[in-house]
């Protein structure tokens, strides 16, 4: 009997997970369908761009600077063994533009903006603001969800680009200013090795995908949260955990597609 109940419990969780994926997919398509209003009233997106993008700037800049500085230190120590210190700029730039920029920025975005979106929408639900909107014949997906979705999709690549740029500057500070790597070779090798389409555009595509996934997860969790303090707190935690895992898994898949054999 214990085996049967275990199998039943596992089955129930799998069915529940598949059900949630289905509901989330429907939510995503409804968001796309009801996006027209957001673009007609672009000020709604601009308002959300401020709270998701602009308010994330500090954490992105500070984290980017330190990650770049660590990359500079570690990169120098490794490259020195092979006498290739001059390639430090290439290593820092490729590491940031291809991987760390999009991934770290997305993880930070999920923690700061994603959790805030979930908590805000969850609380709007708990305080009947969403029900009130529906009773006023205003579609909450069009009015609340769609502007936030597009703000997340737009701001994520910009934040990732900023993270990479600041990270490269951090690598420069440590590598060139502090350690004394030749400045000319730092920048010239970087310029020669980093390809716009292969490296930068692929990084942008990654951050667009991460931005879409994180924002949809955050909005769905908020919209689906039980209208209680415990429900909103659980939904916020799920946003961070699910988004982080999704980012790391998708990064592997995208990297395998983009850079295999490159």
């Amino acid at each position: 009997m214990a085996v049967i109940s275990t199998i039943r419990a596992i089955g129930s969780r799998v069915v529940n997970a598949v059900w949630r994926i289905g509901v989330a997919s429907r939510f995503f398509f409804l968001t796309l369908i009801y996006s027209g209003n957001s673009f007609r009233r672009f000020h709604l997106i601009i308002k959300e761009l401020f709270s998701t993008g602009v308010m994330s700037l500090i954490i992105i800049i500070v984290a980017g600077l330190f990650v770049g500085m660590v990359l500079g230190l570690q990169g120098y120590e490794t490259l020195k063994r092979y006498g290739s210190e001059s390639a430090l700029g290439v290593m820092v730039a490729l590491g940031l533009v291809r991987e760390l920029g999009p991934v770290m920025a997305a993880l930070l975005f999920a923690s700061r903006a994603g959790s805030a979106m979930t908590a805000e929408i969850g609380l709007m639900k708990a305080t009947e603001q969403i029900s009130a909107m529906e009773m006023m014949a205003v579609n909450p997906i069009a009015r609340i969800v769609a502007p936030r979705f597009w703000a997340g999709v737009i701001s994520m690549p910009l934040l990732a680009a900023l993270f990479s740029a600041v990270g490269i500057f951090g690598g420069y500070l440590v590598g060139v200013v502090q350690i004394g790597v030749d400045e000319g070779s730092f920048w010239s090798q970087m310029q020669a090795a980093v390809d716009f389409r292969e490296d930068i555009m692929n990084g942008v595509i990654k951050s667009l995908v991460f931005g879409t996934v994180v924002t949809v997860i955050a909005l769905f969790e908020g919209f689906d949260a039980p209208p209680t303090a415990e429900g909103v707190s659980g939904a916020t935690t799920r946003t961070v955990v699910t988004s982080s895992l999704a980012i790391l898994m998708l990064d592997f898949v995208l990297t395998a597609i983009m850079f295999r054999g490159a």
Partner: protein
Amino acid sequence: MSSNALVEIRDLNFTYDKRPVLQGINMTFPRGRLVAIMGLSGCGKTTLLRHIGGALKPTKGCVRMDGQVMHELDPAGLYAMRRKMGMLFQFGALFTDMSVYDNVAFQMREHTDLPEDIIHDLVMMKLHAVGLRGAQNMMPSELSGGMARRVALARTVALDPMLIMYDEPFAGLDPISLTVIGDLIRRLNDALGATSIIVTHDIQESLKIVDYVYFMAGGVIVAEGTPDELRASDKDFVHQFVHGEMDGPVPFHYPGVDFRQDLNLRA
């Protein structure tokens, strides 16, 4: 449907998770009248209100509003019908990221193409009606419970709805705010020529302002009548409810096992 009724509920049944919540409800809400639905917490009042608003689909029976069956409307029809309604939620449900002014202007901006200067005048008129013109720049977090309810009331009547629904409008208010809200509900209903439905368990305040009352218990209507008829009623449930008696048809003790059994005493 009788020509004078704005909302008619006929044989409404609703079952949730195999549990009957509403059973055979019949109600009529005449135009221009203020009708209260009263009963204990959990008796199905708010569920009934959600059926009138088209947020729930009945298991059996129907709600007719202005001649149309609510649960048969498609989404566009339902939204068109909701533009004729206003609903005041229990704690106001003001949009916390908007000022008092923007909350009241919300529906005007969403549903009309009115220029901003006309919206301004309309918002001022609505806020003046609830006595909060001076609070237009405040945020919801800066308002007291009574003020928030009044702003929500101004927002509810922003587009002059033909039906106004109130979900527990008196909950958690101090005595002065309670009287103010009660008075505003009555005055706004009469001034707008609207029909109002109040879901409440605040018997004393409601009986002062409403035209007719339905009493609900356990998902069915147990009594109905004018305030005077209910005050004079000799029905046990109505008597207990109106006079706030501790024990009666609604028992003080929640059903459970025998007390002696809980204390491990022999019979």
